[in-house]
């Protein structure tokens, strides 16, 4: 009786997991499948999952539909610059919030949390106006500057830093290490999992960002990949789903690569293991 119950539970568990897996993976499979189909196949009913002959040419077509190398470069520059600047701002900020005592600390940290809670929609227009005023509209800067600090990242990293024993920092001070050296040699290496997680989240959200570049860019030369791919629809007049999906596959590949690179660290972020 209990054995049967056990197996039923196990089976149900697997079924549920499979169901969840399908829900999450299917759109990806659908995207990849569509990217390899002919135009006719994309319209056929019932839909086909496996293309008769994989149409690799779709990728070439998508990439030649616009200055995709420029788009890709723009996306890469913007995203990497954002992450780099965020780390430079975030690490010292989190370190100060976690390991220093100074007047107004709680108030300042409250402001950080407030920044984290304010929805972007509220600030879009003033930021847009500010960027327009500065006369940098024709550069990539308007896509970078508004995201230089990451309130969520500061919050998460501060929590992580707080778990690092005070004595380790004190030992480093007694070892005549300056504060920047302590950050670089002690705090950062000990927080790799948290940093990887924050960097990945940041990467995904800025690599995939569509809305902000859409309102901030008015020239081909500064558009990111997301806009380029969205424009695949318009340039062709009709919806060439196979081409759009090919573009999307290209868009997603870097995210998968970054995830593969970070996944081990990210898992660790949730299983902190210190040294007694």
């Amino acid at each position, binding site marked *: 009786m209990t054995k049967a119950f056990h197996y039923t539970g196990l089976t149900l568990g697997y079924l549920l997991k499979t169901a969840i897996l399908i829900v999450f993976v299917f759109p990806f499979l659908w995207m990849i499948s569509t990217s390899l189909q002919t135009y006719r196949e994309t319209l056929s009913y019932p839909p086909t999952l496996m293309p008769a002959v994989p149409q690799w040419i779709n990728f070439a077509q998508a990439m030649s539909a616009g200055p995709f190398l420029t788009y890709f470069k723009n996306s890469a520059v913007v995203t990497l610059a954002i992450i780099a600047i965020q780390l430079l701002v975030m690490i010292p900020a989190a370190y100060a919030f976690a390991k220093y005592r100074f007047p107004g600390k709680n108030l300042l940290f409250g402001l950080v949390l407030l920044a984290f809670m304010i929805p972007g929609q509220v600030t879009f227009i003033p930021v847009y106006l500010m960027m327009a005023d500065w006369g940098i509209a024709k550069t990539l800067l308007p896509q970078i500057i508004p995201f230089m600090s990451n309130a969520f990242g500061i919050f998460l990293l501060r929590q992580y830093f707080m778990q690092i024993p005070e004595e*380790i920092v*004190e030992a*480093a001070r007694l*070892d*005549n290490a300056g504060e920047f050296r302590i950050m670089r040699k*002690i705090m950062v290496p000990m927080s790799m999992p948290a940093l990887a997680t924050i960097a990945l989240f940041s990467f995904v959200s800025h690599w995939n960002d569509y809305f902000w570049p859409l309102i901030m860019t008015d020239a081909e030369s500064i558009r990111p990949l997301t806009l380029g791919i969205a424009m695949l629809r318009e340039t062709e007049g009709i919806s060439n789903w196979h081409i759009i999906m090919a573009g999307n596959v290209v868009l997603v590949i870097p995210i998968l690569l970054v995830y593969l690179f970070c996944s081990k660290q990210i898992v660790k972020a949730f299983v902190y*293991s210190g040294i*007694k």
Partner: protein
Amino acid sequence: MASIEFVRVSKAFDKQEVIKDLNLTIEDGKFTVLVGPSGCGKTTLLRMIAGLDPQTSGSVLIDGKDVTRIAPGKRGVAMVFQNYAIYPTMSVRENIEFGLVNNKVGKAEREELVESIGKAVGLSDYLDRKPSTLSGGQRQRVALARAMVKKPSVFLMDEPLSNLDAKLRVQMRIELIELHKKLGTTFVYVTHDQVEAMSMADKIVLMNKGVIQQEAPPDTMYRRPSNRFTAQFIGTPPMNIGELGAGGIKYGFRPESAVLSEVQGDEPFSVRGVIATREMLGSETIYQVRSDSGNFMVKRSEDLFAAGQEVFVGVAAEKLHFFGEDERRIEEKQGAYRDYLEALRGRSHG
């Protein structure tokens, strides 16, 4: 090598004063142990020397020089922490080397130093391991090596042995004594364990509630405690204390100073009682004797009595201590001492 001096030092945490107007000199090259119950301010003193929590007022002098404005890393002190505070992402070698790199010591010299220190603490085979793969005792050695390699003029240790098991602790105690002998550097060691203090110290500084109770070598501390607190803190079981009667005068004797016998002796202190409990610990036996004058602990190396037995507890005159109303020790040369001794003799009962 350096002496350390506290001059009218006070320390407050969030307006709560834990140390007030404290003066203390720690002698150059000596093994000084700061001991006391938790919260007595001993670690606070240590951290002031290190510069980790500077004093609120007063000054701390290392080798005659006021170090108030000198950063922890530049004071020439090294510290071993209770939880070792080893850098977990660095190898043992990098841990030991970190201070040297920060002090811009050349690579060749660094390597030589790390190798020789590694050998000295028995970590030669582990230099390229990560601390997480080491045992507690080995981590302790890494922490020691890290401190030693900088050749500091002062070694600060904050309960470094409390995370080790009992056996290893005894072994490390001996190693620390030897280390001190070899280096001849000033050691300041904080512990709440009076056995550690007695076994290692050249001089013990006993503290309670931020106030120094007594500074003395271990034997003086044991034989001539300057007040009731010291008397009861040092020694296990603690000293027996009884009321002498009027004037708040108290007498005391150590459990190991008392003799037990079946017939009354002629000691100045002699009371009849019944053995309430008997703890046979192997080399010694601890009796709790219940008498009309109170309960007394008696520690004897021979095991002659059983629980429930009626005995006489006797203490020789030179083993008796008297404490005044202010809890201070009453010295033998003080006039009243003889009177108290007589008063005690008068109270003896058979």
